[in-house]
């Protein structure tokens, strides 16, 4: 790819980029949100046409999506052969299709049952199916978009073992990712994007993680607020909690979150986190008891679906959820009060919006998240539930969100952090609970938390 340029309206997403992917090489593409990685990947894949520049491809390009593009209610073999179905007369040759899938799976060391219905498979298995679907087309180039976002540490290693083997066999691989450690562990080279340009290209051997991170943000890394010493006081008590939504369930968990501490729930996605958070947020019926959780601020899992109304303004979104108690004057909304609150959040949380009247949909993901966090913490809640508060946002925004959570804790709030990111868990937590299949598999104080052991517990080990 040479001289690639792409603009959306007045925003230039990719600004004159040269990128070369070589067969046999794993290249990582890193950068903050909005740096242009996604646009560049879309252009490489052929889903977007660049405004200027040329793309030359030798062979086909395969793409493994972050949120898999699978047909959940169909079988594995159907997902893999669709578009290239083997035929017998006018019908699909089912036997040949399954045989082809089995052979493909065996060849790549990715064992799957061709007859399984995709929605019944665990996340790591779904990713295998997604990868196999792309491999079936024998791509010369393979693009991986945040491939390990939903995997446990052991699954990450297994996944990359396959990718490394593919690269050694001659495939060119591009990994778009936030996880710098994986870059160092598995990639051969790293390209760093900032503001639409590739600002650095490293050989990943010999480069330090900090140096990549600094290049990404274009300066020193923002620091997370320091942990002050607090005297924790009893606040929230959860006893024998059971709740379920869909196939996500917590089964009999008991724990305490004290004022002045952050309790982090570590675990792989899908082990009951959603049900736990929803029960604590008061939006899911539960059995057992939750005490002391009434004055709560909630940072929900999905900012666009549960946190914000994208087509509303910043101000209107600040009023949302507060319309009954805080933002009311008689029967009417307290417009002035809401406006003040919106301005305060925009300032304190560095929400970069053209104005408080801007539609939330026009903000970047990081700025949307800062708004959600700002609203949740606005009234200094005694209890904070934060579900993946830094998911998919850039380093600067993440540091700010983590700082505000830490400050809330320092000021005496009880904070429950649910995160799939062990780095975040270790950075923030005073205590760590490991959630596996809806049960607490282990509890650790900050001082004696063992990363390897927690990783094993997350995967169901001991």
């Amino acid at each position, binding site marked *: 790819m040479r001289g690639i340029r792409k603009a959306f309206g007045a925003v230039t997403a990719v600004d004159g980029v040269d990128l070369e992917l070589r067969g046999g090489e794993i290249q990582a593409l890193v950068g903050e949100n909005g740096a242009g990685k996604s646009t560049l990947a879309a252009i490489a894949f052929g889903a*977007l046409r660049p405004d200027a520049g040329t793309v030359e491809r030798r062979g086909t390009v395969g*793409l493994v999506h*972050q949120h898999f*593009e699978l047909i*959940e209610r169909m079988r594995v073999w159907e997902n893999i052969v*669709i578009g290239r*179905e083997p*035929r017998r007369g006018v019908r*699909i040759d089912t036997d040949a299709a399954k045989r082809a899938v089995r052979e493909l799976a065996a060849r790549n060391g990715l064992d799957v049952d061709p007859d399984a219905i995709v929605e019944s498979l665990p996340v790591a298995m779904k990713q295998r199916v997604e990868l196999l679907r792309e491999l079936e087309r024998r791509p010369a180039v393979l693009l991986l978009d945040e491939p390990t976002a939903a995997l446990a540490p052991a699954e990450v290693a297994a996944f990359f073992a396959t990718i490394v083997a593919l690269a050694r066999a001659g495939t060119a691989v591009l990994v778009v990712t936030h996880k710098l450690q994986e870059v160092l562990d598995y990639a051969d080279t790293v390209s760093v994007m900032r503001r639409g340009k590739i600002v650095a290209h490293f050989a990943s051997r010999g480069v330090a993680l900090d140096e990549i991170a600094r290049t990404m943000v274009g300066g020193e890394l923002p620091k997370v607020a320091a942990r002050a010493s607090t005297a924790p006081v009893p606040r929230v008590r959860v006893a024998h909690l059971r709740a379920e939504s869909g196939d996500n369930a917590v089964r009999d968990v008991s724990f305490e979150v004290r004022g002045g501490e952050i309790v982090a729930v570590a675990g792989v996605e899908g082990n009951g986190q959603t049900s736990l958070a929803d029960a604590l947020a008061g939006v899911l019926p539960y059995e057992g008891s939750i005490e002391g959780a009434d004055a709560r601020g909630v940072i929900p899992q999905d900012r666009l679906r549960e946190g914000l109304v994208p087509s509303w303004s910043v101000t209107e979104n600040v009023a949302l959820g507060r319309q009954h108690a805080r933002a009311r004057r008689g029967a009417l909304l307290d417009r002035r009060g809401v406006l003040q609150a919106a301005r305060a959040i925009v300032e304190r949380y560095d929400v970069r919006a053209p104005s408080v009247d801007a539609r939330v949909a026009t903000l970047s993901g990081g700025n949307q998240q800062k708004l959600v966090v700002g609203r949740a913490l606005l009234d200094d809640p005694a209890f904070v539930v934060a579900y993946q508060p830094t998911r998919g946002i850039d380093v600067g925004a993440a540091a700010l969100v983590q700082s505000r959570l830490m400050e809330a804790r320092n000021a005496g709030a009880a904070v429950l952090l649910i995160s799939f990111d062990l780095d975040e868990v270790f950075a923030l937590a005073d205590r760590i609970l490991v959630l596996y299949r809806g049960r607490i598999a282990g509890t650790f104080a900050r001082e004696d938390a063992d990363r390897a052991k927690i990783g094993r517990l997350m995967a169901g080990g001991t």
Partner: protein
Amino acid sequence: MTIAGVIGAFVVLLAIKTTPIAFAALGGTLGERSGVINIGLEGMMTAGAFAAVVASGATGVPWLGAVAGVVAGAAFGALLGVLATRVRVDQIVAGTGINLFALGSAAFLLVLVYGQPGASKTVPSLGNGSWLLVALAFAVALALHVFLVATPAGLRLRACGENPSAVAAAGIDPLRIRLLAVTAGGALAGLGGAYLSIGELNLYSDGMIAGRGFIALAAVIFGRWTPLGAMGAALFFGFFEALQFVLQGSSIPSEAMQMLPYVAAIVALVAFRGRARAPAADGIPYERNIEEF
């Protein structure tokens, strides 16, 4: 009349009443499996019924009328398809618009062509030939079943109704599949309308579809989004239409009896709710989205 005779007469009536609903329900099933909810079935039946009468009257060949019905239904199906895929109008709004448009333009053209409002003149009907259409309805149900379950195109169509992005990821254009599916669905609904106007009767009159398109829509759901299910559901609703017809003239007020098929539709939908899941992407416009990267 002997009991066998009564039963025989009722079966004939059942077949007649089932056929138009069956065609429309099969058309609706095809659309929904590809991800487009076809609220416009009623309008497509109307277009088919009217076009069939005009063509049959003009040529004197009723089978050309049936062909015209298919073409008119397909045209309205394609209109919904374009609106729902390329223009991305809300499918419910587009379908409702088609219903009103078809009904209104038929009433207007009725005056234009026949110089009288309300009903057309009588035209040559299919007569006993309409039994071929009855048989065809069953054949189409079977053919669609095989098509959806066993052919590559059927697999792709079903995939479009579940996750069009995954279909696009496989290098196939989901919008094209949806457009074709809704167009074919419209053709079937148009044939259902033609059966009513020149198969069962020999004229077009305003409002003659009388909600059968909506009953067909219920049959799609009741039939669990499968062709054979839709056929079964059409038989169920056809049974109540036939029953209503037979019981007219009994001591029960005829207005109450006329409610029967519609009441049956509501009761059936409530009784069988939640037994099957609609296609996951049913009714959701597909849009290529680079944010997914």
